[in-house]
């Protein structure tokens, strides 16, 4: 069966892009961590390059989400996707802000991390909230 043959073209393109970027993310992260923690000392420039390469698939997901907002040709669906994106952004900023002050007041030892992953997770949480009774 073809991938989502009944899905609108913009959703098919979005789904394919997300699958590609998330697959790349998993592969690069596994490869990067194996390389970085392989017992060999690496140059700072190498680790900076590795960091940027590891971030690229997540940046690709950001692009895919915002590209969806451009490509969706159903105005009501665009409104729902925009609401979903804004809600996810709001939840993420709330989490990160609280986390930041937990760090400032020494409740936790590290400041906000994995913000891109948090945003993607909240994007998933926001979808049913926005579409409930929509």
């Amino acid at each position, binding site marked *: 069966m073809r991938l989502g043959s009944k899905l*609108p073209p913009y959703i098919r393109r979005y789904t394919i892009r997300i699958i590609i970027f998330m697959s790349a993310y998993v592969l690069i992260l596994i490869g990067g961590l194996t390389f970085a923690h392989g017992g060999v000392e690496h140059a700072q420039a190498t680790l900076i390059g590795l960091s940027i390469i590891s971030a690229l698939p997540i940046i690709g997901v950001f692009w895919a989400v915002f590209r969806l907002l451009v490509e969706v*040709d*159903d*105005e*009501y*669906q665009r*409104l729902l996707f925009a609401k979903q994106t804004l809600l996810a952004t709001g939840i993420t900023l709330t989490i990160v802000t609280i986390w930041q002050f937990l760090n400032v007041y020494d409740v936790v030892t590290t400041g906000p991390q994995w913000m891109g992953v948090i945003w993607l997770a909240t994007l998933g949480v926001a979808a049913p909230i926005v579409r409930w009774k*929509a």
Partner: protein
Amino acid sequence: MKNRLKVLRAERNWNQQDLADALGVSRQSVNAIETGKYDPSLPLAFRIADLFALSIEAIFLRN
């Protein structure tokens, strides 16, 4: 904004999916417009009016 979309659709024995397909939008969009949860843009309102061969004012009612 109130509208007569549900009545006009029923007069033609169309379900929401039929209307959605004719307009090139999702069934969810048709439902949102029919129930007044969403007011369509002017271009979509014109597409709806053209489909029913009516003026926009004959479909969408002032509150």
